[in-house]
């Protein structure tokens, strides 16, 4: 199971890298979304995917899955939510101000402010 998940995460990272190297800003942001998906899945995988009950003590099982990676993922998810929404608004603002979403046209020289 871990092997399959690793391959899937690898595909996500590949797609993310490809998108982040493209010219359109929106594609880049989609790439960052995929990148954080990959990272979160990787934490879950690296925490181990053994069989066990959900980490709720009411389940009264003999084995539970590791609760720590889940807490880490939850933290990482809200952080990447915050950053992504900031990034989207930034992209919107810069489209309004600069009139382009092409990263090649965002190259600038220092004095042309």
């Amino acid at each position, binding site marked *: 199971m871990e092997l399959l998940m690793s391959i899937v995460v690898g595909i996500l990272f590949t797609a993310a890298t490809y998108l982040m190297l493209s010219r359109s800003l929106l594609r880049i942001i989609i790439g960052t979304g995929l990148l954080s998906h990959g990272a979160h899945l990787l934490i879950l995988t690296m925490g181990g995917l053994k069989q066990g009950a959900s980490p709720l003590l009411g389940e009264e099982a003999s084995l539970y899955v590791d609760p720590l990676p889940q807490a880490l993922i939850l933290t990482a998810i809200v952080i*990447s939510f915050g950053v992504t929404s900031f990034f989207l608004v930034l992209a919107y603002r810069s489209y309004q101000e600069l009139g382009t979403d092409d990263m090649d046209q965002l190259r600038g020289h220092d004095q042309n402010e």
Partner: protein
Amino acid sequence: MNNFIILPILIPLLTGILLIFFNKRFAVQKAISLLAAASSVVIALCLVQMVYTEGIQSLYLGGWEPPFGIILVADQFASLLVLTTSIIGLAAVLYSFRTIDRERERFYYFSAVQFLITGVTGAFLTGDIFNLFVFFEVMLMSSYVLIVLGSTKIQLRESIKYLLVNVISSALFVITVAYLYALTGTLNMADLSVVISENGQTGIITVVAIMFLVVFGLKGAIFPMYFWLPGSYYAPPSAVTALFGALLTKVGVYSITRVFTLIFYHDTGFTHQVLAWLSAFTIIFGVIGAIAYSDIKKIIIYNILTAVGVILFGIAANTSSSVLGSVYYLVHDMIIKCALFFLVGAIAIITGTNDLRKMGGLIKNHPFLGWLFFVSAISLAGIPPLSGFIGKLKIVEGGFEAGEYAISMVVLLSSLLVLYSVLKIFINGFWGEQVMTTEQEKGNTKGMLLPIGLMAGLSVAFGFGIELVSPYFTQAAEALLNPEIYIQAVLKE
């Protein structure tokens, strides 16, 4: 257990929250910021003294014993950096009073500054690797706000790049933590160190170590991950650039130091050699940039790179004197970069340009500013009685002890070029023919001389009073060289 050590995080955090409610009342905003910044300095001073007399302080948050809970650890290295951070925070707040316009102040500028300081001090004080990630994000998010606040065209353009680079490096950080967790099963730094020393630093641990180098190298701008820095730091106002230049990259440097002296120190042959060469290239590319430009802000920005390289070379050489030198140089560099960004900001306000070719003869009307710049410039280069000397001396001494002759020579030669790059500003900007008369000047230095004088004076005092403060720095370097001290203090074995 000591609840006192959470105060350097708590005060800026609560102040930041409080300031949200006063965004339209400028006087109240300024008074609260100033009060909080000043009290942070006092508390950081107490912290340094406390760690000096009583050893490493730790706090188990929520009363959970390590490695199960999150802990805060204040060793002398972290405490000294917290003190420097709070002093820079105070100076930056003072400098912002005069240089930041009403529009920015109204949109939560001072809150963002306080949250930035929360993130930085938190990153210095935490003893947990995932918590370090969270404090990194606190710091970075406030830096995103500060870099784009005002939304001029250049700021929008550069913050997209800055944000993208940091999103990628944060994802890499999460990935690296995931690998480390899979290998060791713990997140507490001291416990990580124990687990790795018990099981030996295998090849895969070295891979994770190099991944950490990439992650923190992206934050701390080392070669070849520095490409985002010159553009990004150029965009925001000088007060913000001063905060960034003095604090943000140094958190990356701190994290590299912490990780490579506490956790991955069992196989130094490979990792430290890589670090040494990367820092050598960082120095070289930094000085090339610094001498290439005739833009005053760009020159100082490239000098950040050089300093990062010098500090990390001291860590990589890993002898007792080079690590001590790195601690000295880190504190010195935070202070002096802050002073220099303030100074170039003041020059830009007076002349209305960053271009060195369009200015000259400033010394006639601004003698005090000119000599402050001169003192800061030679202090940056490391001229003996001033603060940059002792750190570089120790680093080079340690570098020769470790047999790294080539890179030590690079460090020495870089001082010369650094001196050339800043004296170029002094000679072209302050000497020569006067370009503009008093009437033509775009602004005055009213209210700016106090924070500039504070930072430059501190740098001079640090240089002259080196014997007074050296016991503190020796203690800091000792804990870095003997990770057992840190582990003992945290895990109480």
